[in-house]
């Protein structure tokens, strides 16, 4: 009898141990799962976002120049930002004109016009026109700007000048690069920017219930009244979403400007982001570039935080339903 009991006890402890082992292996597996699934993403994001920000702050308090050597720690870069740099007010002013000009004319307004018009005409034609407007976004930037350079070529071979002379009888070729450079960078960025708004607004218009349009028609509303009282109120969220995100991307991007005008003539089209790039990589003032970039980083984080408003956090953070590891 006793040995049976002993055996029983042994069985219990063995069972107990087994459970404990299994529990331990569950937490172990939980850890390794976290490591396998999330590890690479966390490491890369840490290396490519967090480390550069720290390095940027560090460098901005040094005097690093073209030789990449650090001789002293100093706050003179920030003194230069706030007092010494005569060029900076002009650059910041231009950045405002460029960002809000492009935003107001193309990314929001024109995107909206395209979305409303392409959803009002028959479906296939709508897809065609939207496809045309997506073409600049899908083309590589170097190629897209090559086309612009060709179009505005100041000689009589430029596409624009050929059209002006052949169709409108203009005698003297126009030179937009020297006469209207700011307009040029707004247009070249706007042609690409408009398509983003167009896509988002189109899907928002599509999701408006059909019966609202019918009801408005029955009540005697014309096309414009429908846009004003049915479509636009439904686009409130998408419009503010596009405004925030496009402000951010226009403020930090300088690729097309660098390729098209190189910031010139003189400093006429040098926006803030391009100014940083020029200071750092052309003048070799890495520390000053890092100090300037820090302000852009702060703006970037602030605008990105503003973006939280547009997400349905409850849905995003929905708790998973399986607890097995």
């Amino acid at each position: 009898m006793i040995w049976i009991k002993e055996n029983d006890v042994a069985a219990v402890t063995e069972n107990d141990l087994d459970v404990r082992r299994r529990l331990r292996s569950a937490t172990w597996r939980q850890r390794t799962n976290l490591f396998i699934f999330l590890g690479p993403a966390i490491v890369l994001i840490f290396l490519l976002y967090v480390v550069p920000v720290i390095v940027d702050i560090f460098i901005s308090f040094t005097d690093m120049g073209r030789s990449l050597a650090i001789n002293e720690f100093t706050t003179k870069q920030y003194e230069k930002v706030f007092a010494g740099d005569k060029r900076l007010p002009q650059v910041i002013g231009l950045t405002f004109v460029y960002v809000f000009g492009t935003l107001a004319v193309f990314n929001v307004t024109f995107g909206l016009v395209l979305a409303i018009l392409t959803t009002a005409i028959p479906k296939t034609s709508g897809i065609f026109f939207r496809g045309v407007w997506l073409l600049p976004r899908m083309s590589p930037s170097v190629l897209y700007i090559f086309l612009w350079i060709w179009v505005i070529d100041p000689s009589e071979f430029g596409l624009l000048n050929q059209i002006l002379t052949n169709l409108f009888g203009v005698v003297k070729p126009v030179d937009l690069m020297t006469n209207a450079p700011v307009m040029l960078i707004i247009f070249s960025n706007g042609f690409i920017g408009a398509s983003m708004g167009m896509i988002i607004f189109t899907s928002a218009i599509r999701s408006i219930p059909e019966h609202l349009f019918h009801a408005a028609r029955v009540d005697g509303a014309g096309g414009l009244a429908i846009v004003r009282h049915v479509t636009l109120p439904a686009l409130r969220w998408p419009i503010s979403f596009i405004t925030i995100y496009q402000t951010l991307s226009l403020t930090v991007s300088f690729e097309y400007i660098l390729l098209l005008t190189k910031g010139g003539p003189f400093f006429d089209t040098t926006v803030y982001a391009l100014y940083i790039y020029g200071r750092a990589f052309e003048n070799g003032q890495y520390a000053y570039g890092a100090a300037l970039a820090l302000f852009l980083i702060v703006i970037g984080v602030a605008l990105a935080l503003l973006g939280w408003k547009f997400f349905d956090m409850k849905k995003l953070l929905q708790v998973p339903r399986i607890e097995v590891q």
Partner: protein
Amino acid sequence: MEVTFGALRDQIQKPWDRLAARARWMRRAKLAAMYGFLIAVSAPVLLPYFWMVTVAFSSKTGTVDTLILWRAMAILLPFVFGCWIWSTIGTTARQMFFGFAAITAVAVAAFVILVLPDLHLGNFIFIGERNFGDIVRETRTGSKKGEVSGGIDFPSVWLAFANSLYLAGGQTIIVAVIASLAGYYLSRFEFAGRAAMLRSLLVLHAFPVLTLIVPLFLIMNFVGLLDQLLGVMLVLVGFELPFAIFIMKGFFDAVPWEIEMSALTDGASRRQTFVRVVLPQVTNGLIAISVFSFIRGWEEYIFVFTFLIDNVNWTMSLYMFFVRDDILGIDFGLVSAVGVFYLAPSLVLYLVAQKYLAQMTIGGVKG
């Protein structure tokens, strides 16, 4: 009581018909106005692309041969217009088919007679000839080799092509693997700090890497990845990752829980479930983020331009840039041909994968 029913009907019917007719005309006029506006604003976008393709295949003297452009336009415009008109007139599939066939036949005939004789592949000389710069300089301007200083030493176009393929392809694979792992974990597992991580990813997905170009350059320099494609590839991965993770999380969120539950009850582990059961459900998402990353890597210019110096590391974007820089004033046809060569892969990829790209939504944007 003398008014008959017929007279009454006439009295009402006539103004009614007039009104209806007016409304129909107004409708047509409005539609025409909308089309007119859309054509007017879209033509400037399309025209340069069309001219680039035509010049690439037709230019002989290096300058833009306008005559052939106008001829090509004179065929293309009536063709598109005809197809469009017919698509509104034709009612049955049979009518549609014969109408389009007739229009296409006329257009092709006109093309063969008016345009085809002038087309040639001479501008694609860069595909087989590394020293095309000297050659076109000699034929166009008459200057001998070595006479003009500042001519750029171009690598073979296939080297640039392979570099671009390596950069875009490698980056795509890394992004696809890491984003699907992370997206799955964020979608399906509960762990401490999950909410915080999702929130910070949301900030990162909007946060522009371009602002970090100065410190990234310095870091690449310190760790010895400057002037190496691998360095740019890693930066691009970081660029795409937060966005791709969100897209993938959205796709994983849409997979029904029941599929996973039944796999788990059948005794599979979470890892097995992920690879064998869930991953096949999100192939559309994988295709979407892969195509998106590839097109991004294919077109990348700023980081490539800043981080790569040696011409054996040139990608297609740098190749195109320097060809434009060097040859644009000398031979328009050649630059256009390089442009066509560079544009074609991303355009084809985009057209093929369009239906997958359209499914990308960042989960949970308010309507």
